[in-house]
């Protein structure tokens, strides 16, 4: 952690990449563009010692466009500090960071499940929390809290079961 006005310890690792450091309530964050995101994450891991990825999540700013802001929270155990890398996505796809931190595989799956973000290069991008075959992305702000036909998959399964029983062999 640094005093106000001086750059944080890890700012040196991002030299050369256009980035913007802002101060939030829990410390400094850095904002990068989508094109530099992967390089920035790689440099933070290799040069600044951020060995652990705490979470990867998204903030949906609907109805503001562009709506998705991807946040990677990183943790450095040896230096005992955290940083959040924020990136406003122009669309709904982003490069994956699961090869940098294997723990991020499920975090990105969850982002896909909840927001519909596609991660290029992800080894296993499928739904994590909602059932397979669910068509909507629940955490988007235009998705209603009660859901849209939440029992559709169950009713389909039930109908198939009853048809199976009433079939004559």
């Amino acid at each position, binding site marked *: 952690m640094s005093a106000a006005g001086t750059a944080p310890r890890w700012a040196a690792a991002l030299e050369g990449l256009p980035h913007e450091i802002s101060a939030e309530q829990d410390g400094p964050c850095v904002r990068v563009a989508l094109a530099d995101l992967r390089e920035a994450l790689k440099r933070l891991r290799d040069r600044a010692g951020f060995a652990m990825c705490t979470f990867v999540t998204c903030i949906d700013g609907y109805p503001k466009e562009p709506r998705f802001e991807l946040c990677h929270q990183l943790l450095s155990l040896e230096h005992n500090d955290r940083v959040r890398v924020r990136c406003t996505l122009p669309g709904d796809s982003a490069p994956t960071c699961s090869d940098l931190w294997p723990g991020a595989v499920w975090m990105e799956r969850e982002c896909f499940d909840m927001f519909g973000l596609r991660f290029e290069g992800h080894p296993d991008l499928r739904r994590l929390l909602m059932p397979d075959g669910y068509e909507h992305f629940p955490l988007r702000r235009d998705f209603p*809290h009660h859901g849209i036909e939440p029992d559709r998959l*169950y009713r389909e399964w039930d109908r198939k079961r009853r048809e199976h029983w009433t079939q004559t062999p």
Partner: protein
Amino acid sequence: MGSLKAIGAESAGEQGSLGFLATRTDWLINWGRKNSLWPMPLGLSCCGIELMAMFGPKFDLARFGAEAARFTPRQCDLLIVAGTLTWKMAQAARTIYDQMPDPKWVIAMGVCSSSGGMYDSYAVVQGVDSILPVDVYVPGCPPRPDAMIDAILKLQKKIEREDPLGRLIGTAGPMRSEAGSGELQFQPNFGRKRTALDKHAHDPKSRLPIEDPSPRRGGGKS
């Protein structure tokens, strides 16, 4: 009435010649069933912890005969749905219910399984009676083990009143949906046309347009 009493009355041709014996047999069968309930704990979430506490040392459920908590539905007759049922889990829960042999009873433990509880969201079944027939509902979040034991005792009283051979002989009335028929007890109302009763206090988008044109109440717009 599906019981030996009725058969006895019919076959003997006079009132109650087998009546006393049949009533005692009914009572005996019901006594055996109610005092040896084998629970199938479907411990889904927090109520599952209180369910474990109920089987634990302080609120020992084994005193009431319900000790053999087998985790396979094929050997159980009491399904305790303890916790929040989500639509993803609903298929598994219904399959478990169908795999249980007759006679079987269901206790919906906690408010999540009774009515959806505090989760009125896109993923939670609003009450397990949307997909299974329930005998006893136990409120609480989670209900104390004392409340659950009270529920088991109420269920035992309910079993006392049952006609034990009704399903076998086919003279029992339609008390519950046939096991394995797949018939939903109550049709859930999601996705259908919303009525005025579907207004939800927390979700402003769910409010219907207000008809009252006075400016205090929104002036006719939603």
